[in-house]
C-alpha cells in the first residue's frame, strides 16, 4: 500500500473502492446490481489509468523509473531469462555488487547478461550501493563481456543506475578511467551487444555498460546526461526545478526515440512495470530476442561496423560549406 506516487492517487482510490465493494457485496448501489457496479468501477479504473498514463510529464515518468517497487535487473533475469549462473569479481580489487553478471539463457540462446542492480530495502541497498557502481563494477562488467566475446556469447546489458558512485575510493581507483576503457573496448567486441535501459539511465555510469548494437528503453525509463536535480541546481540554482529540467533535457523514452538516440521503446503494462513485473519481463524478453536474432545473423565485421556507425552519427552541429559560405546543419547520415 505504500509507495504511491502522487498522480496514482485517483487509481488507488478506485482500486480501494473496488476492493471495498467486493468485500461487502451487500453495500452496492440500490439502482444497479453488484456485478454491474463492479464492471462500472473496473471500466472507470481502466479509463482513469489510461488517461493518467497517457499524459504523464517527464518528471512523473522519472518517479516511475525510480519507483522502489519497480523490477530491477535481477527481477528481469529471473523472469525473462533462465538458468542464470552468476559470476563475480573484477580479478583486480573487489566484487562490486552494484553490478551483476553471469551466464544465462534468453529463450534458446546462451548469453552473458550483465546489469546494474539496485536494492529493494536498506540492507540490500547497502550491499548494492543503491545501484551505483565503483570502478570494480565496470571492470567486472568488462571482464565478463570479454569472456563472452572470447567464447562467442552474445551480451545483454540491463541498465538501471542513478550514476556511477561519486566517492573517495571510486576516485582513488579511477572510476572515470574504468568507464572510458569500457566505452573503447565494447566497441571492439565481435559478439552481438544489446542494451536495455530498464529504469534509470544515469549519465556516464549508464553509458559505461551501454555501448551496443541496439539500445532499447522501457516506456517509463529515462536516460540522461545529468540528473534532473543536478541540472536544476546548476541552471535554475534550485533543485526544486527538477521537473522543468526533466522536461528541458528530453530524457523520456519517447523523446529519446524521437531524437534517434534509442532504437526501440518497450511498452510497460498500463500503470508502470511495478504493477505487473512478469508481463513487463515477457515484453522485454520478446524485444531482446527479436533484436538478438537479427544481429546474430550478421558477421562479426558487420556487427562492429554497425556499432561504430551507430554511435558515430550522434551529434548535431553547423558547418560552413566552403563553396558558398552558407551554414548548413549536419548530422552524419543514418545507418
Amino acid at each position: 500500500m505504500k509507495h504511491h506516487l502522487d498522480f496514482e492517487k485517483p487509481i488507488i482510490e478506485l482500486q480501494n473502492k473496488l476492493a471495498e465493494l467486493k468485500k461487502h457485496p451487500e453495500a452496492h448501489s440500490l439502482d444497479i446490481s453488484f456485478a454491474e457496479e463492479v464492471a462500472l468501477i473496473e471500466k472507470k479504473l481502466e479509463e482513469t489509468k489510461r488517461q493518467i498514463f497517457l499524459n504523464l510529464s517527464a518528471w512523473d515518468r522519472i518517479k516511475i523509473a525510480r519507483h522502489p517497487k519497480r523490477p530491477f535487473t535481477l527481477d528481469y533475469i529471473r523472469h525473462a531469462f533462465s538458468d542464470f549462473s552468476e559470476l563475480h569479481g573484477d580479478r583486480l580489487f573487489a566484487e562490486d555488487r552494484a553490478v551483476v553478471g553471469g551466464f544465462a539463457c534468453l529463450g534458446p540462446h546462451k548469453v552473458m547478461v550483465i546489469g546494474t542492480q539496485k536494492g529493494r530495502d536498506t540492507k540490500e541497498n547497502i550491499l548494492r550501493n543503491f545501484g551505483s557502481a565503483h570502478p570494480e563494477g565496470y571492470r567486472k562488467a568488462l571482464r565478463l563481456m570479454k569472456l563472452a566475446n572470447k567464447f562467442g556469447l552474445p551480451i545483454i546489458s540491463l541498465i538501471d543506475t542513478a550514476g556511477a558512485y561519486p566517492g573517495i575510493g571510486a576516485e582513488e581507483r579511477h572510476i572515470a578511467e574504468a568507464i572510458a576503457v569500457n566505452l573503447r573496448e565494447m566497441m571492439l567486441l565481435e559478439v552481438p551487444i544489446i542494451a536495455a535501459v530498464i529504469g534509470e539511465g544515469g549519465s556516464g555510469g549508464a553509458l559505461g555498460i551501454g555501448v551496443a548494437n541496439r539500445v532499447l528503453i522501457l516506456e517509463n525509463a529515462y536516460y540522461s546526461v545529468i540528473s534532473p536535480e543536478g541540472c536544476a541546481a546548476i541552471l535554475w540554482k534550485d533543485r526544486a526545478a527538477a521537473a522543468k529540467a526533466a522536461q528541458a533535457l528530453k530524457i523520456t523514452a519517447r523523446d529519446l526515440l524521437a531524437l534517434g538516440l534509442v532504437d526501440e521503446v518497450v511498452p510497460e503494462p498500463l500503470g508502470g512495470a511495478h504493477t505487473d513485473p512478469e508481463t513487463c519481463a515477457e515484453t522485454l524478453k520478446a524485444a531482446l530476442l527479436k533484436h538478438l536474432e537479427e544481429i546474430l545473423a550478421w558477421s562479426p565485421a558487420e556487427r562492429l561496423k554497425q556499432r561504430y556507425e551507430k554511435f558515430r552519427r550522434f551529434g548535431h552541429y553547423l558547418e560552413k560549406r566552403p563553396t558558398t559560405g552558407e551554414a548548413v546543419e549536419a548530422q552524419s547520415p543514418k545507418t
Partner: protein
Amino acid sequence: MSTTSFTKKTLGLETTEPALTPPPAAPPVSSFNKKPKLAAKPKKREIPEGLWTKCPKCGTMVFDKELDENLKVCLQCEHHFPISARERIHSLVETCTFEEMDADMTSVDVLQFTGVASYTSKLQDYQRATGLKDAVITGICRMGPHRVALGVMDFSFLGGSMGSVVGEKLTRLIERATEKTLPLIIISTSGGARMYEGMFSLMQMAKTCAALAYHAQARLPYISVLTHPTTAGVMASYASVGDLIIAEPGAMIGFAGPRVIKDTTQAELPPGFQTAEFLLDHGLIDAIISRNQMKAQLIKYLDYLTGGQKAAAGL
C-alpha cells in the same frame, strides 16, 4: 597548494551531480552581462601596459608580460595559470605548421533548450567573448620531427564542456590520424558534458572512444594531456585512455565534483584529493610535466612511441 583553491576558484561548480561536472553557470568574465563590445576579449594585454597579476598560490605580484612569456606559469612558484587553446598551440607546434580542421563548426540548440537562458544566446555570448567557435581546436601540425594530430581544449568556452561540436571535431581528428597513420595528442580541460545538448553530449563520450578504439587497434600512439581542470564526461572518455596520460602540475582531475563527493559520502576529502599529484600517487598518471617542458617532453615520448620495431618495419 590547497585543494579548496581548486575546487572553489577555477571550477566554480555549485553542482551536486555525480556523473558530470558542469561548466560554470555564468560566463567566467564579468563583462559578459553588459553586452560585450564587438569582439572584446577581456584579456590583460588589451588593458593598458604595466598590469600585474597576483599569483593565487604564492601571492607574488607577477608582471603580465613576463607571465605571458613564461607560458602563464608563475616565475616564483610554478603555479600554472589558465592558458587559451591558441596560446597553447602556439607553445607546442612548429611555426606555421598547424593546419586547422573544421574551424567553422558551431553548436546548434538541437533540444531548443528552455532553461533560464537560451543555449543559443549563451553560445553567442561565449563566441563573442572568447573569439572561439567552440571549446576545442583541432588540426594537423608538426612538433619537432613528428607530424601529429593535435586537439586542444579551451576552458574559457562554456567551461570546456563537450557537446556535439567538441565530440565531432575530435572524432574527425582521431579518424584522420588513423587514416594518415599519425600519432595523436589531445590536451584536455573540461568541466564535462554540455548538458544543453542532453543525451547528444553524453553520446560524444562513446563516439570519441569508438574512434580511439580503431586508432589504438592500428597501433598508433595517443598521448592524453590533462590540464586544470579535467573532469566528468571528458575524463570518463578520451582523456582517460591515452597510451600515456600526462598532467600539468596542480591540475584538478577527477570524475565527480568534490562537493558532490562530500555531500554523498559525508566524509572529509583526503589532502590533495583529485590533483595531478594525488592521481600520480594513485597510479593513473604516467608523469607530471611542467608547461615549459611540455613540448620537449612530448617530442621525446613521440620519439619512443614511433621509434620501435613497428616503425623499423616500415609500417
